[in-house]
């Protein structure tokens, strides 16, 4: 632990956005937006610098207060954290630019929501804090910060639908947090430490550990809208303002997934069985089918996009059964671990770009039409060609067609599935893609269809359309540095590792 480089960046990545968020509170409407945007640019810049530092020196740490764990808290920026922080920075900065212009658009815009800026900066600090945290209780505090910010942002529009959805979101978020905290208390009580690294060494199998794992997993599944706890997501994400929908779907739900991944892989290895992995994979598989089917059945654009998030998050859960090895299989012989990890990480990043683009495009369509019922999307291509292109590209990535990041994720997932012999997941991946193609092509068919009446589209700022397009392109561009990224991820951290199940003869055999 002590041979790792100490760096100020982890502390700054949490402190700086909070400082600017606090500062922005002193300003009035326009000033708040200006300080807020400045804060976003600075935070993104800092994240890139920190990413480069990790790329050059490997994992960096910051021991807060100078107190080493287990007494104190340590921030740890390894390659996995760096990738999540970098993704948040790149997607976040484009959403910020969009928001800046979106809230200023006088005509048919939603108006100004100055509170967006401090809330988003606090949210960003919370996300950075979560990715950097190496402490079970501190993770709880970060998910509290994120939860409050996310709910506040979700209700910001002040619409009644958003309020009701926001209340449900709040109750789900609190339930998730409380369950997580209960698990933390059990773990702290039985081990006397909260540091993830130390916990991974000292945790012993037993009822307490298993039960703690269960409630923590439940809490995080609620937070990341994993099936069957996804009910709060579609209303909350679809009723929010466009930039907020993008933030919530692209970034916020990934926070809970990140903790789940870390805790399963690094901490709770002793209690995780092969069957547990199959179960969580099953939840993911149902989410893929159910979410995609629901998205296919919706008639308003934002609800389609929101339900699609449920499905796309399902793919993330499907990597868990691949990462948990059946008894007798060692990590060295399991050649599917690397594809499975690659699938997970690329799914996270590709979905972040594509979904952000999709929601921002939906916001533009609402701006142009005043609503988002899909039958009015006729001749979208003639009226808003850039937005139509963004939706098309984002859709292609969500389906998983080459050469998008989504393709890379789904291809690697299939590769992992076949290498591991768990063939029963393969039809789910294919069916999910097919259903996704169903709703994406339905939208595109309408977009290319000739208009029935003219002049229903009001003009929207071109700069906003371009931001949405850039994000959609981003979900393709991430494929180019893929090799570098996998090497980087493998250089430090948990990437590429697996859990060797110690329980003999799990409920499901491996082939």
């Amino acid at each position, binding site marked *: 632990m002590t041979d790792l480089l100490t760096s100020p960046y982890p502390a700054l990545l949490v*402190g700086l956005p909070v400082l600017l968020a606090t500062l922005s509170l002193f300003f009035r409407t326009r000033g708040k937006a200006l300080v807020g945007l400045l804060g976003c640019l600075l935070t993104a810049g800092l994240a890139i610098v920190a990413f480069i530092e990790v790329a050059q020196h490997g994992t960096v740490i910051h021991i807060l207060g100078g107190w080493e764990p287990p007494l104190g808290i340590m921030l740890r920026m390894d390659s996995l954290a760096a990738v999540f922080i970098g993704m948040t920075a790149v997607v976040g900065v484009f959403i910020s630019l969009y928001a800046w212009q979106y809230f200023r658009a006088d005509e048919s815009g939603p108006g100004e929501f100055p509170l967006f800026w401090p809330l988003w900066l606090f949210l960003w600090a919370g996300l950075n804090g979560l990715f950097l945290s190496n402490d079970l209780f501190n993770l709880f505090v970060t998910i509290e910060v994120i939860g*409050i*910010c996310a709910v506040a942002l979700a209700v910001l529009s002040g619409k009644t639908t958003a309020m009701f959805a926001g209340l449900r979101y709040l109750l789900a978020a609190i339930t998730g947090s409380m369950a997580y905290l209960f698990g933390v208390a059990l773990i702290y009580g039985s081990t006397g430490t909260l540091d993830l690294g130390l916990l991974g060494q000292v945790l012993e199998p037993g009822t*307490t550990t298993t039960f703690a794992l269960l409630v923590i997993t439940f809490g995080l599944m609620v937070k990341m809208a994993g099936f069957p706890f996804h009910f709060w997501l579609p209303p909350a994400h679809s009723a929010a303002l466009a930039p907020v929908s993008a933030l919530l779907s692209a970034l916020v739900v990934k926070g809970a997934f990140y903790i789940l991944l870390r805790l399963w892989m690094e901490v709770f290895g002793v209690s995780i069985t092969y069957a547990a992995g199959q179960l969580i994979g099953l939840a993911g598989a149902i989410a893929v089918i159910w979410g995609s089917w629901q998205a296919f059945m919706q008639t308003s654009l934002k609800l389609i996009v929101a339900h699609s998030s449920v499905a796309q998050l399902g793919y993330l859960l499907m990597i868990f059964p691949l990462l948990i090895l059946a008894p007798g299989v060692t990590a060295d012989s399991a050649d599917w671990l690397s594809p499975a990890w690659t699938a997970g990480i690329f799914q996270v990043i590709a979905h972040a770009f594509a979904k952000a683009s999709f929601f921002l495009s939906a916001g533009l369509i609402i701006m142009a039409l005043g609503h988002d019922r899909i039958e009015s999307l006729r001749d979208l291509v003639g009226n808003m060609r850039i937005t139509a292109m963004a939706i098309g590209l984002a859709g292609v990535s969500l389906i998983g067609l080459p050469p998008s990041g989504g393709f890379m994720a789904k291809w690697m997932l299939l590769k992992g599935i076949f290498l591991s012999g768990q063939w029963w997941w393969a039809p789910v991946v294919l069916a999910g893609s097919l259903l996704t193609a169903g709703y994406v092509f339905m939208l595109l068919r309408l977009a290319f269809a000739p208009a029935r009446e003219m002049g229903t589209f009001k003009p929207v700022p071109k700069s906003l359309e371009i931001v949405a397009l850039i994000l959609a392109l981003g979900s393709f561009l991430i494929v180019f540095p893929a090799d570098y990224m996998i090497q980087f991820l493998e250089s430090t951290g948990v990437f590429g590792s697996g859990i060797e199940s110690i329980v003999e003869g799990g409920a499901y055999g491996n082939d």
Partner: protein
Amino acid sequence: MSVLIDIILAILAIYLAFQSLLAKRLTQTVFIFFAFGLALALAWVRLGAIDVAITEAAIAAGFMGVLFLDALRDFSPRTSNNQEKTEAAKDIFSKKNTKSLLLPRVALVLGLVLFLLISLEAIWNIPDGGGLTVSVETMLPESGVEHPVTAVLLNFRAYDTWLEIGVILLGLLAIFATGGIKLYLKPDVPAQDILLRQVILFFTPILFLFGAFLLYIGKSGPGGAFQAGVLWAAIGILLHLGGKPVFSMIPRWLGQLLLTLGLGFFLLLGFILMAGGATLFEYPPAYAGVLILIVETLAAISIAAALTAIFANLNQMQEKPNDIESTT
């Protein structure tokens, strides 16, 4: 004997929790909830966590109680508009009740019982003497304070506390964020009667001194910023009820300063010391005591300001939704 007290307290807490859920009238619910908060506070005392007990009593029974009572006023059928709302709400609930809920209820109860049993089993298996008590005691002399809880909150795990102070501010921002909604109409109460004035005049200095005492004693005993902040918030709430809304009487920037002081100074101090080569929230042992006292005082002020503002804004929200944005 003490085991008996514990058992009675545990049963009482669960009984009160159920009663507050099952009570027929909202007023009953709120008052039973007070009692539940106090029972929990007593439970914390029995567990030896005096700090948590004070916070529980102050926040859960005190501040939350005030908010609930305030909300209760909105439900009282004083205006016809409210009555309609209440009726509508009743309708919604009664419609749901007509469906058969027996099976889901039985399943829920069985699930809860199972959950409780497994929880007990899991808690039972926790070995004694765990935790970081020993290492906290060892490091205590270097922390600048004498009370282990304060040492953990303000020094060893200052980062968590700093984020939690942020959470309180975020709670306020979240309430601002909901500001556009107008659900109930509240009658404007001109609280100018003599009795209230006398109560405020009498309690303000006492609350202030008691808060300051709790803040200072936090160095060596149970107490600290959160407890002091709640007591000081009571001053703000009393003044508000007495027709002197603090945030309307001071300049806008001052209000914002009070709200952000705790979080901001905590962080800025950390950044300044970081510039000198320390890590974030690392205090030189020689000055740690003084710095922690300053940080705690400012945090208490901000917590008091945030809680007052939460109360004031919930109070104003119903009347002038447009003003709320401008106060942020």
